[in-house]
């Protein structure tokens, strides 16, 4: 049995929040450098160079990479051999939200979270969006995706016809990326969730964004769609050019005979995610 205390979780989540806001994952920087090497548009090249400089300044200066430090989406992988001592907090969500609030304050993150109707700011970036997913027996991992909303606003979900097939799915993905155009801070990352139910497809698409760079059973199809997206000439910043998307990943789940839910979740180039294991 693995026992983890609330104070350890609060400290680690707080650190994760600060680090994720300041340090872009290595695979993201590498993808940007790779695209810069192949970029033919001078305006897009200049933007990609400024992006790399921004990444350096943020990390060295202890500043958020982007002022939109995002809505915090957590995936918690939690096995049956793990128990959490939540102290005076009602549940694990309460503990994670405390870590989020402390990290936001300590890391000088912008308070970007408001009531949806009266728009009153919660003042500490909590609550985060917390998904619990199955884990191995002794496994306890908290993943964080700091999701900017310029790109979130350009995301889309559609209930396709069950017979739409690969062609229908692909055409919906391309339509969504093309519709997003210059607005989500391209070059983007594209997370695609296929199947399940209405909400499952959306969660799968977000999960896909957290798994960029991992081995995928759909790699060939992903590469084909990515190539089509990069032929759209939206380009970095929407200024035209070769780099419209840095990567695309598909996650699937069985669905109903009558339907085919597909969600396309777009993330900006400043794709900020990380995880902490206990």
């Amino acid at each position: 049995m693995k026992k983890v205390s609330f104070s350890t979780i609060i400290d680690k989540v707080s650190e994760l929040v600060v680090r994720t806001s300041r340090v872009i994952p290595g695979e993201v920087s590498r993808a940007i450098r790779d695209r810069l090497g192949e970029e033919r548009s001078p305006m897009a090249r200049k933007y990609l160079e400024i992006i790399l400089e921004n990444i350096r300044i943020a990390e060295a200066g202890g500043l958020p990479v982007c002022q939109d430090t995002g809505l915090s989406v957590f995936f918690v992988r939690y096995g049956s051999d793990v128990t959490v001592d939540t102290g005076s907090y009602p549940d694990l969500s309460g503990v994670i939200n405390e870590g989020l609030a402390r990290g936001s304050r300590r890391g000088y993150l912008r308070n970007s979270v408001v009531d949806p109707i009266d728009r009153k700011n919660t003042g500490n970036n909590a609550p985060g969006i917390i998904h619990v997913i199955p884990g191995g027996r002794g496994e306890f991992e908290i993943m964080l995706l700091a999701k900017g909303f310029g790109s979130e606003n350009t995301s889309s979900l559609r209930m396709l016809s069950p017979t739409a097939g690969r062609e229908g799915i692909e055409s919906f993905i391309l339509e969504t990326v093309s519709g997003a155009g210059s607005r989500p801070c391209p070059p983007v990352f594209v997370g695609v969730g296929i199947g399940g139910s209405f909400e499952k497809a959306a969660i799968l698409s977000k999960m896909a964004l957290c798994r960029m760079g991992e081995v995928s059973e759909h790699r060939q199809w992903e590469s084909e769609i990515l190539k089509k997206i990069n032929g759209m000439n939206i380009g970095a910043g929407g200024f035209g050019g070769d780099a419209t998307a840095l990567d695309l990943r598909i996650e699937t789940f069985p669905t109903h005979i009558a339907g085919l839910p597909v969600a396309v979740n777009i993330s900006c180039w400043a794709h900020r995610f990380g995880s902490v294991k206990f």
Partner: protein
Amino acid sequence: MEKKITFPLPPGCDPEGLSAGDEVRIDGFMYVARDAAHKRLVEAIERNEDLPMDVGGCLIYYMGPSPAPEGRVIGSCGPTTSSRMDRYTVALLKKGLKATMGKGDRDKSIIEACIRYRAVYLVTYGGCGAYLGQFVKKSRVVAYPELGPESILRLDVEGFPALVGIDIKGKNLYNK
């Protein structure tokens, strides 16, 4: 080649030397406002009330910064998506605003308004808030402090980098 421009423009002047696609460096000062502040400004105009600042000849930057760590002027301060401000922009251009700045393309109505009111739309580098902070020399709240990260700021800037998105002839960077 980079062009230099200072805001606010002197009375009677238009940003006529700027063409879509030009790189510019901005000196002087700019106001900062995003969604909630725009809603308030335009509601004030509709009620025939005075605005909390004179926008004549000015630049409004669509942005909401992260807080300034100790010893710094400002935190991260990159642009937000401009198209969300499309519905509010024309009313401000009518009041003499000469430039807006953000990221991404804009509605056709804004292109037409840029021609009509002889104004420009500038674009700066999305997601590059740490980099852009270097060009901000001073920051203070000028209106709606209760809006927190969405309050209206005045930023004094030196050499703040941008591109011309839409010029006063209606030429558009995103529609080459």
